[in-house]
């Protein structure tokens, strides 16, 4: 009985998370388009629904009912697999991200996370790395030159920044003394307890790494439109195409923003001014601010060349994150 109830709870939770994430991702596209519009002094989606509120639905319906075109000379298995490989790991990271402390509603204890395991962060990194395969498969299976180059570029960038990202996360982990994301949040007490004040170097490295991981400028080499049309997903159409930007630009950015908020901004901690849902609101507010910051950078800066990006990854970001570990270790040792 115990097992069944756990399974049911898990399934229900997962469904809520996945559906919620889909909807959120769809509306994140609208937020991005609105934001980009206003940065450029235009309104963005406006006439489809009230202020473009139905725009994501129209886009989704259209993309779903579009002819599913598979070019003749592609490797069919990999071609289908690639879009899943890119999308599923991005969603799976959600499994380890806590959105708040357990709360009690109608006597039930609801845990706003799927699992809380003590290697949460490592799992998140691992899932993040799997999505590289999606990109490489997409590039390879398309049997076309632009996707090929785009895929290889993206792989080079991801590998470089995965390392920097991992090492930069070590700083907060050392301070919290745990890999569990929940415990990391609990280690940050009060406004000045947030790790951003102690780990600014790690934060900068992680900012750059997230930009690179999610393919936003200045690191969006994989789909630099002027060079590679639309990069590794050039040959994809319909919903198979839709999954890529959804996974990468929206879910990826959202999830990684959540991790960054947990690591540096004390997660859902904040003054209890919104009542019972205060932790959620704080958490989503912080993640949203983070997301907006990425958008802001995306719509401002030009992009690096791919060799310059990898150069920065290996020559600047990696040493910086190692230096950060070193400094943190010394401080912890001195303080005891």
């Amino acid at each position, binding site marked *: 009985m115990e097992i069944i109830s756990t399974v049911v709870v898990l399934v229900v939770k997962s469904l809520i998370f996945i559906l919620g994430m889909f909807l959120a991702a769809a509306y994140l596209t609208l937020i991005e388009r609105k934001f980009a519009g206003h940065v450029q002094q235009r309104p963005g989606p406006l006439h489809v629904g009230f202020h473009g509120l139905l725009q994501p*639905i*129209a886009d989704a319906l259209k993309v779903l009912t579009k002819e599913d075109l598979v070019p003749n000379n592609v490797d069919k298995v990999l071609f289908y697999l690639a879009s899943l490989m890119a999308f599923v790991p991005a969603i799976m990271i959600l499994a380890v991200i806590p959105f708040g402390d357990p709360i009690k509603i109608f006597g039930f204890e609801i845990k706003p996370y799927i699992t809380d395991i003590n290697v949460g962060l490592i799992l998140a990194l691992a899932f993040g790395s799997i999505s590289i395969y999606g990109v490489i498969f997409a590039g390879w299976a398309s049997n076309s030159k632009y996707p090929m180059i785009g895929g290889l570029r993206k792989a080079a960038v991801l590998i470089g920044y995965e390392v920097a990202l991992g090492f930069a996360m070590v700083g907060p982990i050392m301070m919290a003394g745990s890999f569990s994301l929940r415990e990391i949040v609990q280690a940050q007490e009060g406004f000045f307890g947030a790790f951003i004040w102690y780990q600014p170097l790690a934060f900068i490295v992680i900012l750059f790494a997230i930009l690179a991981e999610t393919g936003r400028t200045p690191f969006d080499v994989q789909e630099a439109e002027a060079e590679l049309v639309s990069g590794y997903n050039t040959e994809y*159409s319909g919903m198979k195409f839709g999954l890529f930007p959804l996974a990468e630009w929206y879910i990826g950015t959202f999830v990684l923003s959540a991790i960054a908020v947990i690591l540096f901004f004390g997660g859902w901690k904040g003054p209890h001014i919104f009542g019972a849902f205060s932790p959620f609101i704080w958490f989503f507010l912080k993640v949203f601010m983070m997301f907006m910051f990425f958008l802001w950078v995306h719509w401002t800066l030009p992009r690096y060349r791919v060799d310059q990006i990898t150069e920065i990854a290996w020559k600047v970001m990696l040493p910086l994150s190692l230096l950060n570990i070193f400094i943190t270790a010394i401080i912890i040792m001195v303080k005891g």
Partner: protein
Amino acid sequence: MAITGNSGIILTTVEEVLSWSRRNSLWPVSIGLACCAIEMMHTAASRFDTDRLGIIFRGSPRQADVLIVAGTVVNKVAPMLKLIYEQMPDPKWVISMGGCASGGGPFPTYSTLQGVDRIIPVDVYIPGCPPTPQALLWGIIQLQKKIKEKKEGKELKEIPIRVPTESKPIKQI
């Protein structure tokens, strides 16, 4: 040619919803050929902003719904353009922007294709050299009307959707 399935017996509401989503999310291929491409860029820019109507430009034809042929199509580029059109997934539409694309325009010469409709079927013709952004937007609205009409299987005729009169009357001075 472009619209599939029009039995008229089942699921008209579903079809209506689909037609609504299609006409509100027309993604053109960002391919510019000549002068008209500049006006097409202006249409996408801040002053006129096609994004309002849900139109965003995609680089790859595989992800696009509309081919806006913006500029002179010369014989040498015609097979490529046809290839691009064939790479687009159904349902797809073609807007022929400007005189050159629609009918050869002012270049009745040995090297110019006299109308892009000789190689790909065209849905909307926009005269002009080049058409202003407003004229292009009007053409896009005409295409949206066409998509709506096709769905209902009616004869094509001018129907009043939420569009004011032609060219706003000028206040008397």
